């Protein structure tokens, strides 16, 4: 009677298939090849796993760890900020204002990704205007020292990726509808319980979509982190790019890209497993099955 909720996520999945799976197949093929001579980029007449051996270097893992930290923290921050914001927009704001707020969320996308990020670099610089203003107002004695720190990286990540989190969350919360919340309150649940037991579980497809939409591109993005984090924003995407570009070794770059995809997929699976394990006792406590009711006397009146 009601369309299955996963329909919401179909455009996201189609997008991933067309722009992720297809190029990846090419990259996987290259990864078994080698770099022929100084001026060649790749050859596939002899296939081997040697590039994977080369790719699995300590550098890769150090860089990947740094990337994972940015990816996980950034996604969590987007989630923590995005949930109340999307909830507020979907539930508390009048429909007229809602369109305006959605537009505000999307407007930054009209500006080039890079320009937006560099904008923050200018704002956060020690002699930038934010620093100057804080010092003029007496809020800081020294110039602002946030640029080229991990905090600046996370700030940039939230700024660039928050809309990707808010939009699916907004759609999901909007879809829950007021009737479900009223039914919950009517049955004795306060706002918080209504949110945790009805709104949030029903919005789960949107939450998953939001997490994937933020986490996956973020793991491959090195612009945001490099522009704002400097040396602290070293990301594995840059490592892969360096093989394609500077080293002109497409085979090794491909092997690294494939490894990256595998580790990201494993990370997502591990994350899902952790989420399941953490919520399992809760859902277990609330679960009620036909089997639980068996043996109870049937009271026919």
């Amino acid at each position, binding site marked *: 009677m009601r369309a299955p909720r996963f329909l919401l996520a179909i455009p996201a999945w189609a997008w991933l298939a067309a722009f992720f799976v297809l190029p990846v197949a090419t990259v996987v093929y290259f990864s078994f090849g080698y770099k022929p001579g100084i001026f060649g980029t790749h050859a596939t007449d002899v296939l081997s796993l040697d590039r994977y051996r080369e790719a699995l270097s300590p550098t890769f893992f150090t860089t990947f760890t740094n990337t994972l930290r940015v990816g996980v923290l950034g996604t969590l921050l987007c989630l923590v900020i995005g949930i109340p914001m999307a909830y507020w927009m979907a539930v508390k704001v009048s429909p007229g204002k809602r369109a305006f707020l959605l537009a505000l969320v999307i407007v930054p996308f009209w500006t080039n990704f890079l320009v937006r990020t560099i904008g923050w670099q200018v704002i956060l610089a020690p002699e930038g205007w934010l620093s100057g203003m804080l010092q003029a107002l007496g809020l800081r004695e020294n110039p602002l020292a946030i640029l080229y720190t991990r905090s600046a990286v996370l700030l940039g990540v939230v700024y660039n990726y928050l809309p990707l989190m808010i939009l699916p969350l907004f759609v999901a919360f909007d879809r829950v509808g007021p009737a479900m919340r009223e*039914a919950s309150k009517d*049955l*004795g649940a*306060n706002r918080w319980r*209504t949110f945790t037991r009805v709104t949030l579980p029903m919005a789960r497809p949107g939450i998953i979509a939001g997490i994937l939409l933020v986490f996956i591109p973020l793991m491959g993005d090195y612009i945001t982190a490099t522009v704002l984090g400097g040396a602290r924003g070293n990301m594995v995407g840059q490592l892969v790019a360096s093989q394609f570009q500077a080293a002109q070794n497409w085979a090794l770059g491909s092997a690294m890209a494939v490894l990256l995809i595998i580790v990201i997929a494993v990370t997502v699976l591990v994350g899902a497993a952790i989420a399941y394990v953490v919520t399992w006792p809760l859902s277990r406590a609330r679960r*009620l*099955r036909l089997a639980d009711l068996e043996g*109870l006397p049937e009271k026919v009146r």
Partner: protein
Amino acid sequence: MSAQAGAVELTGVTKRFGDAVAVDRLDLRIEPGEFIALLGPSGCGKTTTLRMIAGFEQPDEGEIRISGESVAGVPPHKRHVNTVFQNYALFPHMNVAENVAYGLQQTRTPKAEIRERVAEALDMVQMRAFADRKPSQMSGGQQQRVALARALVNRPSVLLLDEPLGALDRQLREEMQIELKLLQSRVGTTFVFVTHDQHEALSMGDRIAIMRGGKIEQLDTAAAVYAQPASAFVAGFVGQQNFLAGTARTDGVIESGPIRLRSERAGQHVAPGPVRAAIRPEYVSLAPVADLTAGAGHGTENTVVGRLASIAHLGETMQYVVEVDTGHETTSLLSRIPTPAAPNVHVDDEVVASWTPGCILVFSDPNAGPAIPPDLTTVPSTTPAHPPR
């Protein structure tokens, strides 16, 4: 207090949305254990009234007391009231048993008791076997029962039902009407039932509150509302009426075009002046014009000759439309006669329509209330005698 448990009292309750007054100084007292139906057209304020009792809306003025206690400022989750929603509003991510257990979990009921009461509530609506189903795996009627069980398992003082049968097909609706009524008498909870369907209201309500424009026009038993409507609006909204506008003469006879009516209804006082008379279709009988007794016909009181425009078979009754020429226009009269007693008449026949003088309702305020015409659209279009309009 205990004598009051389940009583609902609204005093001077007003609710506005912007400039629109949804509920206007409403007074209503519902007795404990009563099954009351709020009946009215859409926009009459019945759902808003229900939502104020549930706590989803706060009255702008007036007071609501539930079980003798004022509920001003009490949020919905703290009211001992439960609602069966129009589209059931079952939680799609929970199975039937979890849906029913939800309310009990909020009050931190011990697990063993939850299991017992969930089983009991599901048994009550014969849905225990469906405990593992998700709402999306059930029919509308099944979801309806689960919604009832989910509300009743909390043993509320008052159960609110917001058009709960609206989404069901007709047969299921009629079955559920009977079941709901039986269920209510069994559990003894106060039921406040909102509907726009007069049959539903009449068949279930101990009392029926007919609402219009945010006010209650009449609050009484089904029999009283049917037989003694307090206004032309009530008369028209409950059942059907042939409304005839006319002028009452000093001798009490009402002239409406060529039709002469004389009410012999007990207690009916007809003041001279413009009036509106109402006759229910079931009180209008028909006969072939050949049967016309001497002295009947135009000008005879409570009898009129007209052309039979259509015949419709409604099952247990036959419905006839008689067109009476009033000189410059045509008045239609609706008649319903039990099928076994159907007269031998045909479309285009000249027929005599007559009615019992004791059944004529006269309202002296011809402008009050909407002239609700006989609802001819209920005539089945499959009837060849009455082509679809």
